[in-house]
């Protein structure tokens, strides 16, 4: 068996005799192997994405957000009012933070988008009314100065902390600390600037992605007294008004195992206070793992079937070609038998050729598989253009567009091994039928 290399070399030589035929025969295996690698890469990407999100949002956190109810309902309820009232109330905050024992801390925030200015420079910012805990909870870091303190809350001071991009756009080369920013006709002294932070990914429909870099943070209490709950938006002759007390409450739960049961309690408690039940949503980061498993399953089923079908069809194609090859080379088989080849030698020869053929297909498939992230990117842009136009922002499309496949290193030898296995399985019959030929008949074959 020291001549394995030579055997492989000679097998390659026979295959190279029909380059096009060999190439076409390999295609099935190429796609099959590619699908196997892509399937595992997408599954891995989905679970990594979910884990990252869970880490960002905190595995022990539950996020309750206000959601603007669908228009039809809203107009029916508030027929006599221009003001749309919805969302979480301060009473909800009290309820949740005081009545549920597993809740360690609850952090409320209020968000409004407003124009902010410094001198002549103006930009639209997300004004976030928050508490000191907000900083750690969102993994924000300070670049300069301090964050909002409890004293600011108590005294309802007009201070603000700028996010990185806000500071850069409003102040450019100036040091913002000690200056003041004008928001809705009031001035707020800048006490700190946060460092730039990667935007958080959206979570399936109920929570859109948050970009932290265009924010201004002010104390929640200050926001309440200076701006109120009413947000009036006038533009081009129409105007809308919304009254929201809190946009979000982030609850930290005492123990990881308690998160899911506590989420159930929260949902029940809120059902009591929100009769319509459609103006808030409860997001449990841990449930993202379940979503990731769902994505994984979807892709496993789709790509798994593609892989299985390609591999089987590819295998049958290989078998077909090898049977044709055996017929075509009957005389060669006769010659080899006359020169001393045993049946086993003939089996080995044709099996080697099949394995080399399938293995080469496998190798190409592995190379293609390595480019999965690129291919996926291309698929994504095509899919976004043609399929998600109408249902844009649907849960699945959002998961899909946030997905970055990660090629699993172990999948490469695995997929290659599968291709070789296909070669063995589908090569055995043609190789054996070649070996069973009668040498005299084979020699006489034209």
């Amino acid at each position, binding site marked *: 068996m020291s001549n394995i290399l030579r055997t492989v070399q000679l097998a390659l030589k026979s295959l190279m005799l029909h380059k096009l035929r060999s190439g076409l025969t390999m295609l099935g295996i190429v796609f099959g192997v590619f699908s196997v690698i892509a399937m595992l890469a997408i599954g891995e990407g989905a679970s990594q994405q979910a884990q990252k999100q869970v880490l960002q949002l905190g595995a022990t956190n539950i996020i309750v957000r206000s959601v603007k109810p669908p228009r039809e309902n809203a107009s029916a309820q508030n027929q006599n009012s221009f003001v749309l009232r919805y969302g979480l109330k301060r009473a909800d905050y009290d309820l949740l933070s005081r009545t549920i024992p597993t809740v360690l801390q609850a952090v409320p925030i209020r968000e409004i988008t407003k124009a902010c200015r410094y001198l002549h420079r103006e930009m639209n910012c997300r004004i976030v009314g928050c508490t000191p805990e907000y900083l750690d909870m969102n993994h924000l870091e300070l670049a300069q100065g301090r964050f909002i303190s409890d004293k600011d809350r108590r005294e309802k001071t007009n201070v603000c902390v700028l996010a990185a991009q806000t500071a850069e756009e409003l102040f450019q080369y100036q040091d913002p600390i000690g200056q003041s920013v004008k928001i809705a006709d009031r001035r707020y002294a800048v006490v700190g600037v946060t460092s730039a932070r990667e935007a958080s990914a959206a979570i399936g429909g109920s929570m859109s992605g948050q970009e932290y870099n265009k924010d201004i943070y002010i104390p929640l209490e200050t926001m309440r007294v200076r701006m109120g709950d009413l947000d009036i938006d006038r533009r081009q002759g129409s105007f809308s008004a919304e009254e929201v007390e809190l946009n979000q409450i982030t609850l930290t739960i005492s123990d990881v195992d308690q998160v899911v049961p506590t989420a159930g309690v929260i949902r029940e408690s809120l059902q009591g206070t929100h009769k319509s039940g459609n103006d808030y949503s409860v997001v449990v980061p841990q449930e993202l793992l379940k979503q990731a498993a769902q994505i994984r399953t979807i892709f496993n089923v789709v790509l798994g079937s593609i892989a299985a079908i390609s591999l089987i069809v590819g295998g049958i194609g290989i078998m077909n070609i090898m049977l044709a090859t055996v017929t075509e080379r009957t005389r060669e088989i*006769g010659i080899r038998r006359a020169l*001393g080849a045993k049946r086993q030698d003939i089996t080995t020869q044709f099996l080697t050729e099949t394995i080399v053929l399938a293995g080469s297909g496998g190798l190409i498939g592995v190379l293609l598989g390595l480019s999965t992230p690129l291919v996926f990117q291309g698929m994504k842009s095509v899919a976004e253009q043609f399929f998600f136009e109408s249902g844009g922002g649907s849960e699945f499309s959002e998961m899909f567009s946030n997905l970055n496949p990660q090629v699993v290193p172990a999948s490469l030898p695995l997929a290659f091994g599968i291709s070789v296995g296909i070669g063995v399985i589908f090569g055995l019959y043609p190789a054996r039928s070649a070996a069973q030929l009668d040498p005299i008949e084979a020699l006489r074959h034209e």
Partner: protein
Amino acid sequence: MSLAAQVIDLQKDYMLGAVPVQALRGVSIDFPRGDFVAIMGSSGSGKSTLLNLLGALDRPTRGKYIVGGRDVSSMTDDELSTIRNEKIGFIFQSYNLIPQYTVLENIEVPLHYRTGYPKIGDREQQRIRELAEMVGLGDRLDHRPFQLSGGQQQRVAIARSLVNDPEIILADEPTGNLDSKTEQEIMEMLLRLNREGRTIIMVTHEPAVARLAKRQIYMKDGVIAGEGVFPG
């Protein structure tokens, strides 16, 4: 004089459809070492059957075929392969080279099937080159069969038949597809091998070729009809 091979009362029956045919009906021949035998006969005389048996491609129905001191008639398929590989060198009418292989690779083929699959090393590569040069193809080592003339292809086949240093060389109408000039060259080569001590058994239709052998055997209806020096 020791025998290279010996057949004793060789018989071969086979079924042609439903009809049993006796292709060989008792043939006994001794082949001393260094012999050069031409087997002649019309088609259907049983000479092809005899050649297949001599080539260990088939087993006789009855009788014995002894080559290299061993009786082939009761061997397994694998043992027959080993005998073909070690004791017999084949030369065919239609050369039977492997089309995708070069001259060197074609000569190498029998080495792949040696018992125990020893490595084909430098010594073997050297021998392959020497054989190629001996048959006058030293300058065409990397040519493929379709790039060679019939005579050149047959030389490759002769080199290939010698690579395992066999007891007997079986030539099945080795000049049947060649013009007379090339025929002469090939026959000279066989005669030279015979002078060097090889045992050659050759099947041929042509009396002119048969005449060059040391002795001739005429087959008819599955038995030996005549034997002797031409024209017998």
